[in-house]
């Protein structure tokens, strides 16, 4: 069953304070709301109902639930949105209430039917798509095409693709910054020096150890790493331990610094790249600064295009300005910002890469600095040299961390570059190593212990680096396959949509632009085989295919294209829900295209239930004429301090609503509309018969109107009309009803049943008919003193069919 909405009720959400009730009965609705009346409170509430989010309220600093709740609502009050459908089992209310001091939300319907329905609605993405359409329309011409896939609901796909791409790049960057090859080579040098071979297999390593211990009669054959430890234990003496520990430390120091020395070019290359990008951006810092203004400028543009700001001044600084000129200027600036953003992205990448390289070196120096022997007085010069190197790496870090917008210069590459003298301590360390080795030359056992110990350490480091590299490479490979697979899936998905709906999009476009020279429109994906940068369009112009489309497409044409795309996506994806919500989407359209869009909606989407919200008065008036003929519900949204956002119901709509609910047996909340209708007809009657009431403030009036008006009316009739006195029993019946009791306000403790309400409503209609002519031809049906017959001394309607004596 295609789902349509029968009843929508919202209480205490966003600008809506009292209950706003839309008895849609599966019909489409057109709602006009001036700026600031809280029209979007409806779309926000519906978005929250379906997605548990409100996209324009998303942000770390905003608590969504707090922002959703009407600001005047007390903590014990319950905000909610109820949706009743043409399939009753999925009717539900989503409540926002305080539990244990915390705002929580919950659905009243916890059935599988409802959760399945919610899940399929999420797949349709029916609420958010119109917002992407609105974003699309608000964007600059150059920016529009990149976002076409968003308006058919593929924005999440693009977002996830970005996550996978970043993760893949992060692995690549990790492999690069580790520089495994260099680290492994350093350790291989140690192996050559200690055991005479850069072995890479464990069995070769054991063979080599067995070879060099052969003459020492250890009685151990090495086949495992534990066997190497046994050999070391056998060779170990208190003297060897001390000397070897010192030798090991010096060699670690030496190899760490040597590795760093071989990486000077790598570090410098990355810093140089970063420095150049920094200089470029710093030379034109204004262009980067303005990227931070992009959102503000877009907001300013929206304020103008949506006519929230109509004065001839800038909506942001309020300086006098022609709005058309201003809008054009903003669009030019947004295009410039787009270029700046591209430059900034290159700069950001260079910064990430240089940071990773430098951080890794700082980490390695810190590891060396944590060696126990570095604090030994004999190593104080080595420690100082290490500290100096740390400082130089920190200087790189400081330069890379400088904000490009600070106006500060950063160190030029040559001033930071590590040079030979930064490693002068290496010479002294090598001298000490040589000295120890010389002393050990006569002590074969200790030398053997030192060599095996260092070789084991180097071999294990190689294995560790290889394992780390292997893991990273394997992850990179997996992520690469996943990313490629994802892009293919995305491209296929888009292509499927294009293959199926190109004709539909073209048809909708042509509908809004008849007689255009564009003979045919074709949608194509952008990007190479394995990449997808977006989608664009080509069209035939005088027999030739033209691209890019901006060449001949005006902004209005592109907007029409976006709308056609969106409407095609409704047909494609709204499989279960046969309704759609459109909140203020035509602001940037010229009058001609607005009308054609409305015609398109009515003609091609007649079987859909459309919830159409607008603040464009002219467009509203145009759509209203057609809506009336098509049987849509039409309403105006108002805002007052006491009621918040509410519907300005006109009496005939109210009457229709009450009668429809009585027929369908919808008793809940029906008391209020009935009361409003009774108030309306009483005011009309009292006005026509000049029944006067003393002035009271509004708050008091709210509670006293129906019964006081009726009492005054009775008093007037008693004095003025014998014929109308005969009608007093119907008035008495009205006032004695339990439903009328306690002024019919929401506070009425009486819980009326359908029978009570029907009886009460019949009395109201009978009461109304006393003062309103029932002849269909009567042009002034209200019985009024304005039509007073001075000869017969009668009040009457316009056609004289209904009249009463009156003195």
């Amino acid at each position, binding site marked *: 069953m295609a789902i349509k909405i029968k009843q929508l009720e919202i209480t205490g959400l966003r600008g809506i304070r009292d209950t706003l009730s839309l008895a849609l009965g599966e019909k489409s609705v057109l709602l006009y709301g001036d700026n600031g009346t809280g029209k979007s409170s409806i779309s926000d509430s519906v978005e929250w109902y379906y997605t548990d989010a409100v996209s324009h309220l998303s942000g770390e600093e905003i608590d969504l639930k707090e922002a959703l709740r009407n600001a005047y609502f007390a903590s014990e009050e319950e905000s909610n949105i109820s949706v009743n459908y043409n399939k009753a089992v999925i009717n539900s209310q989503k409540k926002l209430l305080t539990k244990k001091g915390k705002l929580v939300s919950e659905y009243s319907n916890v059935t599988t039917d409802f959760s399945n329905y919610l899940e399929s609605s999420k797949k*349709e993405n029916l609420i958010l798509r119109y917002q992407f359409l609105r974003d699309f329309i608000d964007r600059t011409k150059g920016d529009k095409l990149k976002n076409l896939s968003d308006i058919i609901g593929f924005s*999440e796909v693009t977002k996830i693709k970005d*996550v*996978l791409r970043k993760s893949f790049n992060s692995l690549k960057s990790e492999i690069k910054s580790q520089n495994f090859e260099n680290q492994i080579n350093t350790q291989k040098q140690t192996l050559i020096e200690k055991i005479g071979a850069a072995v890479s297999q464990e069995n070769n390593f054991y063979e080599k150890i067995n070879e060099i211990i052969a003459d020492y009669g250890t009685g151990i054959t090495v086949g495992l790493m534990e066997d190497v430890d046994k050999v070391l234990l056998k060779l170990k003496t208190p003297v060897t331990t001390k000397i070897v520990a010192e030798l090991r430390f010096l060699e670690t120091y030496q190899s760490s610094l040597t590795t760093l020395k071989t990486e000077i070019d790598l570090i410098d290359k990355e810093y140089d790249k970063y420095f150049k990008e920094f200089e470029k951006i710093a030379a034109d810092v204004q262009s980067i600064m303005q990227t931070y203004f992009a959102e503000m400028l877009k907001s300013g543009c929206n304020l103008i295009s949506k006519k929230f700001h109509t004065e001839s001044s800038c909506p942001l600084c309020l300086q006098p300005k022609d709005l058309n000129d201003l809008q054009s200027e903003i669009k030019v600036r947004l295009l410039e910002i787009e270029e700046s953003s591209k430059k900034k992205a290159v700069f950001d990448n260079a910064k990430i890469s240089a940071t990773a390289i430098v951080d890794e070196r700082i980490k390695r120096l810190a590891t060396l600095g944590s060696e126990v022997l570095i604090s030994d007085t004999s190593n104080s010069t080595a420690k100082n040299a290490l500290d100096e190197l740390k400082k130089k790496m920190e200087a790189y870090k400081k330069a890379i961390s400088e904000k490009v917008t600070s106006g500060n210069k950063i160190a030029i590459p040559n001033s930071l570059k590590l040079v030979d003298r930064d490693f002068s301590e290496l010479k002294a360390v090598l001298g000490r190593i040589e000295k120890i080795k010389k002393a050990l030359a006569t002590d074969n056992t200790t030398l053997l212990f030192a060599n095996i110990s260092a070789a084991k350490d180097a071999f294990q480091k190689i294995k560790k680096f290889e394992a780390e590299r292997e*893991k990273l490479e394997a992850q990179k490979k997996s992520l690469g396959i996943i990313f490629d697979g*994802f892009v293919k*899936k995305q491209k296929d998905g888009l292509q499927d949509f294009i293959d199926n709906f190109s004709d539909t999009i073209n048809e909708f476009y042509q509908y809004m632009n008849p007689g255009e020279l564009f003979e045919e429109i074709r949608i194509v994906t952008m990007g190479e085989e394995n990449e997808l940068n977006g989608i664009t369009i080509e069209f035939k112009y005088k027999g030739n295919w033209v691209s890019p489309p901006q060449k001949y497409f005006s902004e209005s044409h592109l907007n029409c294209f976006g709308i056609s795309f969106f409407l095609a996506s409704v047909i494609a*994806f709204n499989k279960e829900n046969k309704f759609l919500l459109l909140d203020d989407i035509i602001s940037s359209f010229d009058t001609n295209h607005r009308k054609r869009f409305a015609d398109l909606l009515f003609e091609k989407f007649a079987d859909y239930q459309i919830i159409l919200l607008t603040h464009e008065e002219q467009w509203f008036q145009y759509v209203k004429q057609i809506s009336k003929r098509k049987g849509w519900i039409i309403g105006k949204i108002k805002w007052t301090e006491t009621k918040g956002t509410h519907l300005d119901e006109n009496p005939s709509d109210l009457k229709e609503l009450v009668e429809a609910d009585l027929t369908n047996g919808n008793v809940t909340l029906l008391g209020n509309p009935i009361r409003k209708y009774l108030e309306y007809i009483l005011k009309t009657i009292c006005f026509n018969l000049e029944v006067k009431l003393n002035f009271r403030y509004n708050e008091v009036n709210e509670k006293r109107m129906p019964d006081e008006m009726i009492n005054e009316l009775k008093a007037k009739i008693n004095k003025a009309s014998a014929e109308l006195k005969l009608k007093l029993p119907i008035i008495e019946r009205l006032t004695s009803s339990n439903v009328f009791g306690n002024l019919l306000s929401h506070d009425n403790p009486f819980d009326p049943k359908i029978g009570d309400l029907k009886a009460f409503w019949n009395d109201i209609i009978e009461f109304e008919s006393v003062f309103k002519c029932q002849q269909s031809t009567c042009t002034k049906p209200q019985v009024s003193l304005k039509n007073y017959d001075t000869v017969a001394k009668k009040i009457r309607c316009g056609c004289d069919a209904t009249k009463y004596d009156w003195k």
Partner: protein
Amino acid sequence: MNKREVKSGKEILDDFFRDIEKMPEVNQKIAKSLASLYEQGKLTDTNVKNELQNLREKDGD
């Protein structure tokens, strides 16, 4: 050319992460981890980076 069924953005994502473990030559633990993050609505580059780090730190991965 035969036209294929049109899928919404969410359906494309659901399909992809449902079948991710079946992708040839893809590490199962990485695939499972990504699918799980997607299921929980936590698929961000920071979370993926942390998960990959965790997997590397575990023995045998």
